[in-house]
């Protein structure tokens, strides 16, 4: 209950502000031609990006996991790194390459590039955990490799695909950097415009509620699509070795697609930034870089930790059987994720400025990250907990274990990789968060994202480059760690084959 109140702050804020407008004004604002156009454009963008992500993302993740490719771990990490590049920097570098880049399709292209990692991460981790015994059985029953994939593997990762779709869709709804630079007025851009250019907080809040409604529809659609859980996986499935398909054309195709993706989403943006830097290299104080990096890591880690703690009871209750309360809480969390950073920032300013010394402290900032990104943690955590088969829990219970011991000894170990994924996602996105950081950081504290912003705002992309580079390097480390289970498997494989 407490969690629900905490995370509803932005929503409460929107309702209070919006209610300052008269009913007729609200109706006029909502029904004017422009609002409808903006809504249409937002939904179109959402559908395109999510559809491409679902099909292409699943295919790429499958390739990463089931096809023999060179350096699978490095390729995997490189496809996750775009997560660490702030949206406006990413888009800026693309505009520098193609100045005419504009409009809906350009925005869809950029957003697919930047949200694909959500899909890849969610789906890859599920692939890695599928009970390989089941695959063996299916093969021995005479199913072709393709049929195994579509009939045995896909149904088991359906929930993860839908979690990935959800996260990428909510990202599209809340993104400001890419769409504003590409001149696509989505609901989030409208909200920002109303806040910034007419200081009309009430009108902005009305549109904010409309965005919330759009997110609500999207989230409910998603829960219909993900269907009922019928997956049950064993813990030891996790340890099983992966059989990669050894087919040359398929290997070449997969490698090429992965390389192309890394080229477009990581290499090219960095090429632009580094070449800007080299055009006019400027001395960057190592101490500035180090301080900014340190504050970024510590606040983002705190935020990730808070989000993790808050998501545990939610996700746990959600898997204990769906009570109306937990499902509402989970949905509100997800919808809140669609709100732009500036709304969450202002809501916490409004509520936090009454807290005296807590206001503009790193605690409130970390809490803001938790509110902003809790959905990432909840989505991954509940996907993780649903992996634990009810039978397993029942067996454990009949062996006389208490509920909490079942959770600690049975549920937790199985869910661990996905829990780690949730923490990682919050950490990565919190590191690059800008609008709420600007409003809530302790006065005088710089993060890597605020440093990048302050140089980019005066067109000094050359000086922003080192900070952006460092941000991605820092992001690479936890991402790399997350992929370690794969190497552990490989080493076990080696040991086994040496025997």
């Amino acid at each position, binding site marked *: 209950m407490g969690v629900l109140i905490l995370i509803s702050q932005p929503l409460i804020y929107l309702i209070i502000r919006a209610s300052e407008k008269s009913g007729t004004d609200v109706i006029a604002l909502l029904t004017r031609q422009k609002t409808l156009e903006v809504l249409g454009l937002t939904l179109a963008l959402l559908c395109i990006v999510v559809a491409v992500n679902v099909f292409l993302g699943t295919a790429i993740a499958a390739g990463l996991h089931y096809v023999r490719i060179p350096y699978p771990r490095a390729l995997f990490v490189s496809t996750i790194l775009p997560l660490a590049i702030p949206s406006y920097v990413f888009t800026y570098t693309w505009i520098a390459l193609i100045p005419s880049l504009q409009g809906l399709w350009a925005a869809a292209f950029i957003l697919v590039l930047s949200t694909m990692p959500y899909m890849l991460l969610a789906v890859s981790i599920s692939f890695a955990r599928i009970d390989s015994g089941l695959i063996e059985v299916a093969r021995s029953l005479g199913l072709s490799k393709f049929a195994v994939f579509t009939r045995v593997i896909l149904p088991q990762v359906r929930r993860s695909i839908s979690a990935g779709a959800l996260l990428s869709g909510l990202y599209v709804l809340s993104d400001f950097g890419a769409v*504003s630079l590409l001149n696509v007025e989505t609901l989030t851009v409208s909200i920002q415009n109303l806040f910034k250019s*007419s200081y009309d907080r009430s009108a902005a809040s009305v549109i904010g509620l409309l965005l919330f409604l759009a997110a609500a529809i999207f989230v409910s659609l998603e829960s219909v699509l993900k269907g009922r859980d019928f997956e049950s996986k064993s813990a030891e499935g996790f340890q099983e070795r992966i059989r990669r398909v050894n087919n040359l054309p398929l290997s070449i195709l997969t490698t090429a697609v992965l390389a192309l993706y890394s080229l477009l989403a990581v290499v090219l943006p960095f090429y632009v930034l580094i070449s800007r830097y080299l055009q006019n290299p400027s001395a960057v104080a190592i101490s500035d870089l180090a301080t900014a990096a340190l504050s970024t890591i510590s606040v983002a880690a705190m935020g990730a930790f808070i989000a993790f703690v808050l998501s545990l009871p939610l996700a746990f209750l959600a898997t204990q059987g769906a009570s109306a309360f937990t499902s509402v809480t989970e949905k509100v969390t997800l919808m809140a994720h669609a709100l732009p950073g500036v709304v969450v920032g202002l809501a916490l300013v409004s509520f936090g400025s009454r807290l005296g010394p807590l206001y503009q402290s790193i605690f409130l900032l970390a809490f803001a990250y938790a509110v902003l990104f809790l959905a990432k943690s909840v989505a991954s955590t509940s996907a993780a907990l649903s992996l634990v088969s009810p039978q397993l829990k029942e067996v454990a219970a009949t062996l006389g274990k208490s509920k909490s011991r079942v959770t600690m000894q049975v549920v937790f170990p199985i869910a661990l990789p996905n829990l780690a994924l949730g923490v990682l996602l919050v950490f990565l996105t919190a590191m690059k968060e800008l609008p709420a950081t600007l409003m809530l950081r302790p006065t005088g504290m710089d993060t890597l994202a605020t440093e990048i912003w302050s140089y980019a705002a005066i067109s000094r992309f050359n000086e922003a480059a080192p900070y952006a580079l460092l941000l991605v390097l820092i992001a690479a480390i936890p991402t790399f760690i997350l992929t370690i289970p794969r190497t552990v498997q490989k080493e076990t494989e080696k040991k086994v084959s040496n025997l």
Partner: protein
Amino acid sequence: MKKLLIGVGVIAGALVIGGAAWVGMGSNKATDEVKELTIYSGRSEEFIAPFFAEWEQESGIKLNIRYGDSAELAAQILEEGKNSPADLFLSQDAGSLGAVSAAGLFTKFPDSAANKIENKYIAGDRTWVGVTGRARVFAYRPGAVTTLPQSVADLTKPAYKDKVGIAPSNASFQAFVTALINEKGEKFAEQWLTGIKSNGAKIFLKNSAIVEAIDKGEIDLGLVNHYYTWEVSEALGRKIKVENGFFLPGDIGNLVNVSGIGALATSQKNDAAIDLINYLTSETTQIAFVEDTHEYSLISGVKSPEALPDLKSIGSPQVDLGALENVQRTQDLLIRVGLL
């Protein structure tokens, strides 16, 4: 036992907090001296930090500086209301100051403060004062343009077909269009915008992109703020082939907007705040601003940025800068003519 412990804890906690508050109040009364001042700055750190540092040295008061986007900081101050920790708000543009002023959150400052700044650049109710001037100009490539335009109205003529760049989504362009609407009426503004659009004006996202495009020869001239020629040249690390031009004196295209500062009514440290305002608007600081940031000083008689005419001879139109606050109507118009 547990309850007892909790009770003791609560009492101890209350004592500590109460004691701290008591000590805090005591020391406030005893010294009366301001040790720290909090300023929200919409001006970028790169340009303004050295000046703040100098004032800190002179006054012995430590500045807590919060950098951000001017409009977002204004929204933040509006949201904080009377709980705002800010003592001062330094903004890139007059519009954000106007919004805070309209909410009654600024204090009026005395006539003796900022007394060198021309009245034209001070809010009518003396709630904020301009610090530097930012002139709208047409940037152009010398040699490429045979006859320079004399008025913004000229830019809709065939001579400039497909040669002009504008940035309709940019705040400074929107402030200019707002002034155009306020001075000449919405109808005139609409005709001008439609005219410039059908004359093949190229759309850019930022002023700096317009200047870069002129340098590359993609367009011949563009409507920007005057300091972008320096900003782009510094970012690229080389000289560029772009110069600033002004329309005839009094033309709305010569609008001079200001960055400015106001002191918050909730602040208990108004004397120190006004001391900082006086420092920023003193002749010495203003001369340094002109050299460092290439913006205009708002004191008459201070030299203008190199190679540019002084503010008086530009003949900037008489416009209520604080009234440029609401650009909603401007944006609706830009959308209607298809420029946004």
